[in-house]
C-alpha cells in the first residue's frame, strides 16, 4: 500500500520534472519586470523628465533586437520581455509627468537635465498609448 503511494508520488514528481517550467518562469519574470517598470518610470520622470523618452524607447528596442542574437531561447525571451517593458515605460513617461503636475505623484520643482537633441525631441509628440 505504502509502496504504491510512494511509486505514485515518484511518478508524479517525475511528470512534474518533465514539464516545461521555464514558460511559467517567464511569466513570473514578466510580472516582476512590469512591477519594476512602475518604479523606474516614476523615478526617471522625477529626476530626468519625460523628454528622455526616445532614449528609453531606443534602449527597449535595442534589448529586443539583441535577443535575436542570443542562442538560448530562454535568455532571448527574457531579453524580449525586458525590452518590451522598457518600450512601454517610454510611452508612460509623458503621462507620468502629467500625474506629477496634477498632484497624483510628487512633483520635482528642481530643473531637469535636457536630453541630447532636445530641440528635435520637442518637435515630436511624445508617444502615449
Amino acid at each position: 500500500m505504502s509502496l504504491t503511494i510512494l511509486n505514485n508520488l515518484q511518478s508524479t514528481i517525475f511528470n512534474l520534472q518533465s514539464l516545461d517550467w521555464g514558460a511559467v518562469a517567464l511569466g513570473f519574470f514578466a510580472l516582476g519586470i512590469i512591477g519594476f517598470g512602475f518604479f523606474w518610470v516614476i523615478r526617471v520622470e522625477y529626476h530626468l523628465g519625460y523628454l528622455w523618452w526616445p532614449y528609453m524607447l531606443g534602449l527597449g528596442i535595442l534589448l529586443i533586437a539583441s535577443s535575436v542574437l542570443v542562442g538560448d531561447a530562454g535568455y532571448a525571451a527574457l531579453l524580449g520581455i525586458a525590452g518590451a517593458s522598457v518600450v512601454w515605460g517610454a510611452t508612460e513617461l509623458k503621462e507620468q509627468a502629467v500625474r506629477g503636475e496634477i498632484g497624483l505623484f510628487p512633483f520635482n520643482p528642481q530643473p531637469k537635465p535636457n536630453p541630447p537633441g532636445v530641440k528635435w525631441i520637442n518637435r515630436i509628440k511624445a508617444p502615449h498609448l
Partner: protein
Amino acid sequence: MLQLVGVWIALVTFVSIWWGHVGVRWVEAHSRVIWPPMVALGLAALTLNLYAPFAPNLAIGGACSVVGFTLFWDAVEVYRQQWRVIHGHAPAHPANPRHAAYLAAGLGRTDDPLKREPQGVPVDALHIAPLCNPCTGTPCLVCPRRKGNQKITRRQEAHAAIMSQVAQVAEVEQ
C-alpha cells in the same frame, strides 16, 4: 540562425501591458458590477498558467504564461480603477449605472484629468474634482499620499464611507 523567440515574447508582452492599461479602463467603465470581469480575468490567468508547462514549446508556453500573469494583474487593476474613478483620478462613464451613482453622490468626474500635455509646472486640475477624499487627508490604495501602516484602516474607513454614500443615492433613485 537568428533566435526569434525573444521578439515574439516581446510582442506578446507589449500587447499584454497595453491591454492591461487600455482594456482595464474599458472593462471597468462598461461593467455594472466589477467582480464578474475580475473573476473572469483571474480564471483566464489561472487557465493560461496551468496550460503553460504543457505547451509544446517555449514560444507558446512563455506567451501563455506572460499573458496569464498580466491578466492576473489586470484583475487587480479593475478593482483599483474603480477607486480611481471614485476619487476623480480617472473619468467616470455616466452611461454606466454604477458610475452614475458615484456622480450622483458627488464623487468622481466625467473629464479625464490626465488628458493634457505636460506643462512643467504643478497644475491644480484635481481640485476641480468634487470630494477627492484621499487628496484631502484620507489616504487610500490609489492615492500616493498614503503613509505608514495606518493607511489600511483609514483606507477601509474611507471606502466604507464612500460606498454607503453611493448606496444611499442608489436607494433614493430606485
